[in-house]
């Protein structure tokens, strides 16, 4: 399946707001790629996770121990990939890993005046600084793909 950078950018934008569990990524990927197979949904979800981890906007934890998973993006993605077994669904995803926003990003949003209530995509469209922060390139995607 051919992935388009505009789609991945859209997924990065929405998943920087909606990211708590793996299913948050997969359901958004399915909206962009409704015909994607389970494996393709997983691959694209891992790319989006990787991009957000690489930008240090998100961090990922083991759900039970709440310990950080991986010291690098590559480690984190590898761990998620291993935990994410074939056929895993919503009921499994809610007890595998969870993501949170990095504290610096939360503080920056507060400093910039975001109230954590307004529509996120509209807020992005109105704030160039945030668009710059979230912008990805083909090279970014290739870099994450190489980690998988």
């Amino acid at each position, binding site marked *: 399946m051919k992935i388009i950078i505009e789609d991945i950018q859209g997924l990065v934008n*929405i998943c920087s*707001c*909606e*990211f*708590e569990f793996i*299913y948050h990524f997969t*359901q*958004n990927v*399915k*909206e962009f790629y409704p015909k994607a197979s389970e494996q393709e949904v997983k691959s694209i979800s891992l790319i989006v996770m990787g991009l957000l981890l690489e930008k240090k906007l998100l961090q990922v934890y083991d759900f*039970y121990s*709440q310990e950080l998973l991986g010291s690098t993006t590559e480690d984190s993605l590898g761990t998620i990939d291993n935990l994410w077994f074939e056929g895993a669904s*919503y*009921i499994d995803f*809610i*007890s595998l890993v*969870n*993501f*949170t*926003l990095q504290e610096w990003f*939360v503080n920056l949003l507060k400093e910039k005046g975001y109230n*954590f*209530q*307004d*529509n*996120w*995509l509209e*807020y992005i469209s109105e704030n160039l600084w945030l668009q710059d922060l979230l912008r990805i390139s083909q090279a970014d995607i290739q870099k994450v793909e190489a980690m998988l």
Partner: protein
Amino acid sequence: MKQFYVLNRVILAIIFTLVLFSCQEEQEFITITEEIINDDSSSKQFKVPSLLDVQSNFMSEASYYQIFTNKQNDKSNMNDMLGFGVDWELSFPTQFDSEQNIDILYTPIHFNSSKRLKSFIASATINDTLVSQIVTLAYVGQPSLEYFNGYIFFHDLTGAFITGSYYESGNKIKTAYVVKTKSNSTNKNSCIEDQWYYLATYGIDGYEEFFSDDRECLGSTTVVAEIAMGDGDGSGGGSGSDSDFPTSSDMYIPVYSGGGGGSTSSDNLNTSNSGNAESVSTLESAYWQETIAPNEAMITTLASEINLNATQTQWLQNTQNSTELQMLPYQIINFLDKNLWSNEAKNFAQEAIGVLMDDSLTNSMSSLSSKMDYEARIKTITNRLRNYGDLEDKLMADYIDSLLPEFENLNMGEVHDLYKLVVWQQKNLIRKYFQAVLIPIAEASLPFIELALTDASLGLAIPLISRLPLTMVLRGLRLEKTIRSIAKLGKAGRAGSHIRIIPNSSYTKAITLFNKLTQNAINITRKALPDGRVIYVADMGEGNFITFRNFDYSSTVGLQANIDLKFPKIWSKNRELKFVE
């Protein structure tokens, strides 16, 4: 019976209009009809003509021009009562048939006195020839805010009939059209009027029966085509005698808010050909209310029939100034029709009007002196719902009554708030009852759930939620209805409307709601983690899950608990209710 009064008035209005349309020279009728028959619509080139050209063409077509300029020519005296005219200044180009990409110039014709008729001139330049036709919607039967019931006629500018179709509940039932003409036949206006009379009085069936071959009135044969399910064409195998402006696909009729100085809007009547039968349905707008509003005399008669006093009668008249209530008199008449104008039905109508006109359900609604008074008032309401409502209303009444024993634990303010809500909901249900709309308990109870989750104290909130009837949460369609309603609570979250933020709430309210929603779960997995996180997952069958958690990783401010609704048959994305302080 007052319904006959109303029906007569409607029929008279339709007959009058149709008679007007029928004043034409036979030769013109024949020529234009044949031209239409011989047209191959697929090769037509449609353009929107200029208004000046359309006006000029209209004036040159003597029949119609005379109708609108010389009322003395008309045999009927009713034109003065009806009053009509062409609103040239409100003309505008608009899409007429989206499938065939046909645009027309739309010119509304207003009828001042009859709101059950709506006409417009549809004009297009077809292969360099300007063609204008009159499209008329004649509303019959039960007024509906959702569907079109009645006839759609096409006439040319001379008044010659081209095609007519009958619709019930938005579906095209039958259509009639001219399939052959005889240039040597004799024509009499009375014959034409007979046609219209039968068409309007007995419908297209009667029209066909009366004007069988031996009559040869007008020298034409009109074929009645029944629209078979699956016959999307709707022409019944007709010979291409449809109008110049195809009606078999999307026909777009802009709303006319007319009556001189009115304005147009983007609302429209859409005839769509989706599904099996050709259908006409409306968008959610006030379109029908404007078109078929009852008149003063009809309301006065209705008021007399159901023994309203002067104040009640005036209130009913005033409904015509309210977009929200304008349809009420018609709805009451339909309700009474269905109940054969029985004394019981009339009494209910009178009682219901008393309830609906009670303006006391405002924030300033005066308090009653004791909880017993509130209880008595509420019991009156629930008895009314039981007596006149449907099964869903009875469930609602039982639910409300089940809250009464809690009054002793509530303060007067809470009892008053609950009473206000019951009165408000009673009005909604009565109005819906007149509209013959069944309100599922899942929907009717939503305001009570909302009160419980946001404003009520725990003392009121817990019974409000926990006493919701079990039937609301039985797995399957009942639960899905309830879930759909619940997913409307609160306001949209920052990720979109699938996230619902429910303010002024608490952990206890959320877990109470979870327990109620999952009362019929197949199983519930409960996980309490050492760090205090709690997560419950209820399997509701068919891949549906309801999840409760007391934590959140999305930085939602003030989050107390989270309920995730995973119902893949309803939504591709989970709905999440986030209960915040």
